[in-house]
């Protein structure tokens, strides 16, 4: 599904090199966790996948279902089935959550040559998914993410993900700012989306999230490179020993 080859990238503004040769292959049906210390490049990788132009790819390529991802605009990537759950979902005053959901869903459908959803069908889907994620009608009526608590924002992200039904979900530190109950609700929402046709990349600092969303593969990212790949037991080992071994190994 996703193939990253020798990816090098830097911050466009000041040319600071962040990614120094990432190789990663994710197949349909797999859940990959990417762990690593602060500043290792985890969030940069997620932004580059989604197409944020603050970063510049200097070398390497990314193939998404055989297509060159780096040639696509952010909205084309989304329509092709890539979804990034933001670490810090943005507040957009004046844009009602419902209106936003409808616009996003129909924009993607249009890009794929599908018909726009009827209002009743749209409402039905939103109500179903919102109930599972404990997202109230009151939240849906408010401007997008405005005045939402940290947990509400993350639930709103997962609601968007559920409705947009992406092929590849990238979750950037979705556990940050969540209490135990919110973590459980969000994780259940994510687990429901696990399927043989869908892949996930879960970026996190902590093992905690991986107790709920159990990965097939765990990668350790340090200083812009994947320095270790293993099974889910690797996350437990990191939790116990910290990243010190890998930071040194990469240096």
């Amino acid at each position, binding site marked *: 599904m996703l193939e990253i080859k020798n990816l090098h990238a830097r911050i466009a503004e000041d040319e600071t090199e962040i990614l120094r040769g990432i190789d990663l292959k994710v197949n349909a049906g797999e859940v990959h966790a990417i762990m690593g210390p602060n500043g290792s490049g985890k969030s940069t990788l997620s932004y580059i996948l*989604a*197409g*944020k*132009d603050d970063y510049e790819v200097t070398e390497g390529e990314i193939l998404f279902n055989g297509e060159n991802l780096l040639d696509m*605009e*952010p*909205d084309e*990537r*989304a*329509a092709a089935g890539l979804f*990034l759950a*933001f670490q810090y*979902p*943005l507040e*957009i*005053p*004046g*844009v009602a959550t419902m209106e*936003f959901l409808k*616009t*996003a*869903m129909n*924009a*993607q459908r249009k*890009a794929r040559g599908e018909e726009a959803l009827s209002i009743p069908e749209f409402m039905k889907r939103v109500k179903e998914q919102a109930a599972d994620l404990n997202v109230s009608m009151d939240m849906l009526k408010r*401007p997008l993410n405005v005045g939402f608590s940290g947990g509400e924002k993350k639930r709103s992200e997962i609601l*968007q993900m559920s409705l*947009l039904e992406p092929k590849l979900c990238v979750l950037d530190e979705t556990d940050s700012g969540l209490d135990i109950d919110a973590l459980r609700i969000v994780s259940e929402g994510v687990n429901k989306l696990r399927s043989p046709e869908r892949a996930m990349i879960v970026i996190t600092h902590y093992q905690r999230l991986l107790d709920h969303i159990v990965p097939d593969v765990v990668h350790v990212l340090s200083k812009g490179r994947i320095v270790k790949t293993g099974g889910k037991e690797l996350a437990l080992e990191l939790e116990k020993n910290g990243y010190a071994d890998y930071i040194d190994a990469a240096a």
Partner: protein
Amino acid sequence: MNANAPIQKTQAESDLLSRFETTRAELPGSVTVTALREAALGQIRDRGLPHRRVEEYKYSDLRAFMKSAAPLAAATDLAATKAVVESAETFGDLDRYRVVVANGVFQPELSDVDQLLAEGVSVFSFADTLDDADASQMLKTPKTGPEDGVVALNTAFVRGGVVIAVKSGVEVSKPIELVQVATSAGAQAVRNAVTLGEGAKLHLLETFVGDTGAGELNTVFDYNVSDKASLAATRLMTGKTEAARLFTSIATLGAEAEFKSLGFIAGPRFTRNQQFVNFAGENSEANIYGVSMAGGEDLADQTLIVDHAVPHCNSREFFKTVLDGRAKGVYQGRINVAPHAQKTDGEMMTQALLLSEDAEMANKPELEIFADDVICAHGATSGQIDEDLLFYLRARGIPEDEAKTLLVLAFLSEAIEEYDEEDVTEGLETRVRDWLASH
């Protein structure tokens, strides 16, 4: 500035002087009115059209903009007016009354005079009132801008307009649309007086349709809102035109009165919307909103002076501007609080969104406070579309143009939603979308 310094007349100023000579005989009014016209014209002759050295016109130099002045539009006929009115798309199929003024002349045949009368609203020709002994009352100048050049230009040439008088206690059941029509090219000077008796309530829609060619449109609205009355005035200043669009409101509010207005600018090359709001009675409220969109070389000017002359009144001023191309936006807002106007609550905010590098915004919020027990605030912002918000929307599959539209609409809607006149909300938001689609 030395007001007495002789000035070199511009072409437009010379045109105005000869326009006066050729049309004065056909302009309505008693001897008193003629004297007022002559005095007003004298002001234009001596000081010229308002220009950048006049503080209030510093950013909107009408003198430099008006290259010439076309003759006043001639009288019109019923059929031509009817055709323009019927082809107009102002507020879609909104259920409303209609009052028509064409080329400056009230058109009773095309107005819902009888239905309005049945509700307690009299509608009659403004020109007819100028023959009365106390006609000078009808040609009011703003208390806080007695020598305003645009009002003087109006007084000199006013051909007519309409008077809408709502009886005390009458809440008009649906909005009244005051449509001003141009059926032929030419300048228009129009005055409309809207009077609400005690406890009356009205939503007035002010629209303009037709093409004035090279002629300026100069309309003055004189609102008198009696005690406990409530007036909402939605003003559309739209349509592509190369000629100046000049609008003035003079609002006088009684006690426990409510006045709100929304000035919506999108399209004309040069628009000045100036409002003079005067609190004459206590415990009243004024909420003034503005939504301006300007592209190309357009200039959109929203200017207002809110005069808290008495205690215990609240005012809120909230203006939004979106600029593209080489357009210029102007906001000049002043809240005056008189020495004894204690417990005044005034809050003014102007925000601009610049979509291009070359667009320019002049924000000038001012407070002039002489009382010591007041709450007054003002603020101004100018910025570009937030790239992070744009990316967030695009990451959800919304194409760039659509995402920008969504963000601009959200920005402007804040003022439209707060204005809170449900009859027009959707129509105005559609106009915002249409404007964005064409820019």
